[in-house]
């Protein structure tokens, strides 16, 4: 009977779980790691970036983002949009071509891969024959010209990837017509570039690696003109009026050639102009050249590379020449590609914006404003301009603070162009973010960056630098951009990616912002804790340092780590924004491992591997210092330097692990056929290797003598019942690595005496967890079982005041289990074991609020946590019952797991690369994900799918005409359905996708036949 009732309860709970929790990875913020290709569609106004890991990302107007991933784990080498269509072709490292499209589904656009293709050469041909080196989407939108390493140009019909064998331009056809005097008719080498005549779609120019360029007539299948350049070809550009071709070469030169070999001009030199812009000495190759006309005045000439090899060969430059202005834009990382956006709807006007994709950022330059300033990008911002060391998320920022942060941030952005963001494709259909959220990232160079994390775009708001408080080795003036007059080449530094830190001690380790009071505290690598206040005006002030000795007289310790930072004695001028007014320096200057701020009581708590302290930032004195160090813990004493030995050991181990994981990766790939023996053989090899160098793990209970047991992992302020159940008092809780929790009762004077009466702290409780696992979190629950609100939250009427009638509970979260204790008398009430059951350990934990997506008024609080296995879990409060579990991060991705932060509303962020945050959501109610629509603009040329074939279609081609008609008919049906019924569309789509593959197969058969 009881069991039945319980069962009913369970299923009800299951339903509730479905209403509360739902896991999804929603959007990636930041800059893609290792970009390898750039594409742009002028008609869609979309930007595409391909990466080395096979991802393809599309960006339009802020909020419009798409992402796709190739199944092959190969780098994307080229991205081309089909002219005037929502289709896109990608070329991968493994020589496969992929067709992607933006398809409308349920009112939103989706990025889908609709076809793939691998060029088939004649049987027995070497692979170089079909190795694609150049791709040209023909302006008809139906043909794709593929230049290969063997020098052939294959013509393929899209979408569907049908090889039009009869129209291929073979190397023999071309070389037969090459003038005899062209360097003894040597091998022309691979096809380096393909360009279409902007004025005549039937003409293309084929550029061969050797230097020869051939203008080919697609209709008549013959060469029209030969351009006999003698230097290795790097790129070509056909000017807009169709009368010139520019070629750039590996020796740093570029040439301009007249097109249209009329009889009368044949005598005169076709080579109109040749120039090595940074000449005299040997130069590096010019890898891409673009020339664009302006309505009035001289054209813009842009090229990348070409720097003098010896003196500036390591610079990454794009040169822009317009009239008398000549600038070499100097980037901090390798240039991947660039393009220019032009004015006007059809993008035929003056060049307006230069977009440069470099390895670590996207730089956008306004070419129409004097001085060519940089335009602030609303997305793709390099998060890692200095390495991220920590992060904090603050939900629901009050409007006042938000506006003030934006205002001080604006003052830092005056050097940016006022031009609006030029890429405006698509519509953002997502709802406005329900609240204002801030993500704060701490960086290695001592800066804290404030990001608007409310929506799909992670937008930079404000940057705070703490370095000004300290004397550092670097002179702040020497990194200023001081280009000497008359310097050649005329360099100009652009971009903000600057991975070089002046002093690693400046690194930010912990951040805590109080959103109600505007107080911020940051703590760093050298034991420094700064308390800052938001000030709208610039102020000159001296920051007084208070040194806190956390060792408390423990003798015989020698700190071998870094020294503490030197504080500037003289007053420092701080710009408007967060200005430091007090500084605490821990002694020994070990990295700060825990930090908390209580703005109502005006107290800051901080902890290191040696102990913790409580600082009163109103009276500027120490309230409490507690040394948690175990006297026998040498590792914690000596600082990071003495760990050289163990680093060596761990390096060796990690190499072994990498080697093994490679083996297992390989294993993963081949499992398609159950080759048991093969797997066994591999395992045997693995075993042999393990016997040579076995990875062992010691099984031992934790003891108080372990290293770093005194390291403070968490600090928590609570107004709760510590001594008796009738009087609640302020309290401070600290949890250590050794499984110990210290509780202190605080006496905070009333507001009117706050400035003169001292704050006192008395030890009240000590809990030593039997299992001695590190304590990673402490939470006090009120009488209703809800976590206590944040300081000042109640005062601002933003939270229900906690229930002080019922008994409070203490939740101690260790890496291994969750334990609930009663208060004020601490006795164990409930617990949830994690590690003992499944071997995973808590890495990150946060309190989160979950609202039901069915019942508006129903919500629960829970603990959301991430394990070392990369799984996210939700545990209910106050009963600490496991609710849901989802795999989130690969377990090998240690830095990703370490970087994870949770929001108060069940979302989270973690780094998927040094430069990208993945955003995920566990909540059904709070999901921030891109919802956008891209509509293909009507274009006269592409409005009729039955555009006349460019002639010369052979009989073999005609036989396939029928199937093509069928396909286009299906397409029409689909388009029709698209407008009417989504369900029908889905079905049709499914069947079509089935057809698609069979269609492809047919094509292959045709090609073979």
């Amino acid at each position: 009977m009881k069991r039945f009732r319980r069962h009913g309860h369970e299923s009800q709970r299951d339903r509730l779980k479905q209403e509360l929790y739902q896991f999804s990875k929603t959007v990636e913020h930041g800059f893609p790691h290792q970009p390898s290709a750039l594409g742009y569609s002028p008609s869609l106004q979309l930007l595409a970036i391909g990466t080395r890991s096979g991802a393809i990302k599309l960006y339009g107007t802020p909020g419009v983002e798409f992402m796709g991933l190739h199944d092959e784990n190969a780098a994307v080498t080229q991205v081309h949009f089909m002219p005037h269509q929502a289709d896109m072709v990608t070329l991968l490292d493994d020589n496969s071509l992929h067709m992607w499209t933006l398809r409308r589904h349920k009112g939103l656009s989706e990025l889908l891969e609709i076809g793939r293709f691998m060029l088939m050469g004649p049987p027995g041909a070497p692979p170089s024959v079909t190795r694609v080196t150049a791709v040209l989407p023909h302006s008809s939108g139906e043909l794709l010209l593929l230049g290969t390493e063997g020098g052939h140009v294959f013509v393929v019909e899209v979408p569907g990837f049908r090889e039009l064998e009869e129209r291929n331009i073979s190397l023999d056809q071309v070389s037969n017509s090459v003038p005899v005097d062209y360097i003894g008719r040597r091998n022309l080498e691979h096809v380096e570039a393909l360009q279409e005549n902007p004025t005549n779609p039937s003409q293309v120019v084929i550029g061969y690696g050797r230097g020869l360029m051939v203008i080919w007539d697609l209709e008549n299948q013959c060469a029209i003109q030969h351009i006999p350049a003698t230097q290795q070809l790097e790129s070509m550009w056909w000017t807009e009026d169709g009368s010139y071709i520019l070629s750039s070469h590996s020796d740093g030169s570029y040439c301009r050639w007249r097109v249209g070999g009329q009889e009368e001009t044949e005598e005169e030199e076709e080579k109109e102009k040749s120039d090595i812009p940074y000449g005299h000495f040997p130069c590096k190759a010019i890898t891409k050249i673009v020339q664009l006309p302006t309505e009035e005045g001289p054209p813009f000439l842009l090229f990348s590379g070409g720097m003098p090899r010896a003196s500036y060969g390591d610079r990454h430059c794009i040169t822009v020449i317009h009239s008398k202005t000549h600038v070499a834009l100097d980037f901090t990382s390798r240039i991947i590609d660039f393009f220019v956006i032009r004015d006007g709807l059809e993008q035929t006007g003056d060049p307006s914006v230069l977009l440069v994709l470099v390895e670590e950022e996207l730089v956008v330059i306004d070419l129409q404003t004097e001085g060519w300033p940089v335009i602030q990008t609303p997305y793709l911002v390099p998060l890692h301009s200095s390495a991220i060391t920590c992060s904090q998320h603050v939900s629901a920022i009050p409007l006042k603070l938000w506006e003030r942060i934006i205002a001080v941030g604006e003052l830092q952005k005056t050097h940016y162009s006022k031009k609006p963001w030029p890429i405006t494709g698509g519509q953002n259909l997502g709802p406005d973010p329900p609240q204002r959220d801030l993500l704060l990232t701490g960086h290695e160079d001592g800066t804290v960056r404030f990001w608007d994390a409310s929506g799909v775009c992670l937008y930079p708001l404000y940057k705070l630098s703490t370095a000004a408080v300290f004397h550092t080795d670097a002179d702040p003036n020497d990194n200023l951009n001081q280009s000497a007059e008359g310097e050649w080449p005329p360099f100009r530094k652009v971009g903000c990616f600057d991975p070089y830190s002046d002093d690693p001690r400046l690194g930010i380790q912990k951040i805590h912002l109080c959103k109600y009071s505007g107080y911020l505290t940051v703590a760093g690598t050298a034991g420094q804790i700064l308390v800052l206040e938001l000030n709208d005006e610039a102020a000159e002030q001296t920051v007084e340092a208070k040194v806190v000795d956390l060792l408390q007289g423990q003798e015989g310790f020698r700190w071998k780590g870094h020294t503490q930072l030197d504080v500037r004695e003289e007053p420092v001028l701080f710009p408007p924004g967060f200005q430091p007014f007090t500084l605490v320096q821990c002694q020994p200057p070990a990295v700060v491992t825990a930090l908390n701020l209580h703005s109502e009581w005006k107290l800051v708590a901080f902890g290191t591997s040696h102990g913790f302290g409580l600082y009163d930032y109103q009276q500027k004195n120490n309230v409490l210092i507690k040394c948690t160090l175990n006297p026998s813990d040498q590792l914690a004493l000596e600082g990071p330097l003495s760990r050289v030995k163990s680093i060596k050991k761990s390096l060796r181990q990690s190499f072994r692990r990498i080697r093994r994981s490679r083996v297992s990766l390989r294993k993963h790939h081949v499992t398609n056929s159950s080759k048991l023996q093969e797997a066994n053989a591999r395992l045997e090899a693995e075993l042999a290797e393990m016997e040579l160098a076995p990875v062992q793990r010691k099984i031992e209970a934790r003891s108080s003598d372990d290293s770093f047991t005194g390291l403070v992992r968490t600090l928590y302020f609570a107004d709760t019942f510590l001594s008796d159940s009738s009087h609640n008092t302020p309290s401070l809780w600290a949890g250590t690595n050794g499984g110990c929790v210290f509780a202190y009762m605080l006496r905070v004077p009333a507001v009117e005496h706050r400035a003169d009466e001292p704050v006192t702290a008395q030890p009240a409780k000590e809990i030593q967890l039997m299992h001695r696992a590190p304590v990673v979190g402490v939470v006090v629950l009120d009488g209703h079982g809800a976590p206590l609100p944040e300081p000042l939250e109640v005062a601002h009427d933003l939270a229900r005041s906690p229930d002080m009638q019922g008994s409070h509970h203490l939740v101690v979260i260790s890496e291994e289990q969750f334990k609930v204790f009663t208060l004020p008398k601490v006795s164990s009430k409930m617990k949830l074991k994690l590690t003992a059951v499944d071997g995973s350990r808590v890495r990150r934990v946060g309190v989160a609020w979950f609202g039901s997506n069915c019942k508006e008024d129903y919500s629960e609080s829970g603990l959301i946590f991430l394990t070392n296995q990369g799984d996210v879990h939700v545990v209910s409060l106050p009963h600490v019952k496991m609710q849901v579990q989802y795999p989130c991060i690969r377990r090998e991705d240690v830095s990703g797991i370490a970087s994870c932060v949770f929001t108060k509303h069940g979302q989270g962020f973690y780094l998927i690369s040094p430069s990208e945050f993945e955003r995920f959501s566990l909540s059904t109610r709070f999901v921030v994900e891109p919802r956008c629509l891209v509509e293909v603009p009507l274009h006269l040329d592409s409005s009729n799918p039955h555009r006349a074939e460019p002639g010369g279609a052979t009989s073999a081609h005609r036989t396939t005409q029928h199937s093509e008609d069928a396909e286009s008919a299906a397409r029409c049906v689909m388009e029709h359905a698209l407008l009417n019924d989504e369900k029908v569309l889905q079905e049709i789509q499914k069947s079509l996708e089935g057809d698609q593959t069979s269609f492809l197969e047919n094509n292959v058969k045709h090609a073979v036949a």
Partner: protein
Amino acid sequence: MVLAAGPKRTEPSRMSRQLPPQQKTPIRLTDTVVEVKSKFEAEYRRFGLKRNGSGGFQEFYRLLQTIHHIHGVDVLLGYADIHGDLLPINNDENFYKAVSSANPLLRIIITKREDEPVVYGTNSLQRRKKGLGLTGLRTTGSGTIHSKSKSGLMIGPPQNFRQISSIIDVDILPETHRRVRLHKHGTKKPLGFYIRDGVSVRVTPQGVEKVPGVFISRLVRGGLAESTGLLAVNDEILEVNGIDVAGKSLDQVTDMMVANSHNLIVTVKPANQRNNVVHRESKNFMGNSGSVGSAGSTGSVLSHESPSPASQSNPITASSIAEGDSEDEDDDGDIILENDCPTAYNPHLVTKRNSVKLNGESSCSGPHPSAVGRPLPQSMSLPSSIGASLGYSSNTMSGHNGSLASSSQDSMKDDGTELTL
């Protein structure tokens, strides 16, 4: 301390009652005569014993009673074996074992049966289990249970020894597997073993398949794992506290074991399959217990726990789960130090209290004015209810878990290995 007191109180007059000839030439006669040194309370006796003597346990028992002049006193006999472990003598078999293993000296320890204290952490547990098994025969005095259990063959009174390991669930496991429980009650001994990745061979319908597994790679000398003799290098680890480790990484298994280190139950497939527990079909013989071939020679105490009849119907690690649950309460052995009345704070005492480390040697002195009838200002609350009445001995403070319900004297005798004669 006991050792120091012993010789002082030994009266010279009693020395004459010892058997002189054997005592004088003990070493030369080792082949035939065993030198015996016996101790009862603070008194020592030395005498010789024929190694191949025909007398059995009862005879020896009476001999000792005679020598120590303790006729009519019910005593328990124990001896220290070569490993320094205290082992019982209560039947002919272990008496012969004791005599044969004496090298050259046989140390006998005699304890009164009635003052037999509840010494070891395992005891309380054992009793609780037995109490459940015998349908609520819960008694505080252990005598009743003893008289009951005496009806069966008594291998040894575990009450006198710290149990360090046991083989459990013999009846529900395949013979090729062994479920070992390691007790780490307040010992300083490390668990002392290492695990590694390896390849396990499984027989499947498709043929022999090799799957990744976790194995014991090393045993630390003198560690708990080694001293049990139940675990060996290259044993495959199948379960940790009832949870299958298949598909788990080495690090996960490591973390699981460490998290369960206070009460670790590992199910292994021993690399050496010759010493497997053999099922005894006769159910009347101590339930479903098994016997271990040669493991006993290492000097460990093996207790074969028989699951209650009810649990037999549930073959899924029945008794281990049940034990895991009961152990759960012990695992709540968090030490909580509270200041009861911080409002009436004496600043002098505050600093003093701060100096008291959890595992510190110093105990608080002087009653606190406001502590109600309690001699100590700070209350130590231990999760098992016994904690409240606990004294402040340093030994109990450092104790990890389990019952600390021993007086401070007992806790000194606690560790058998510290007793030397």
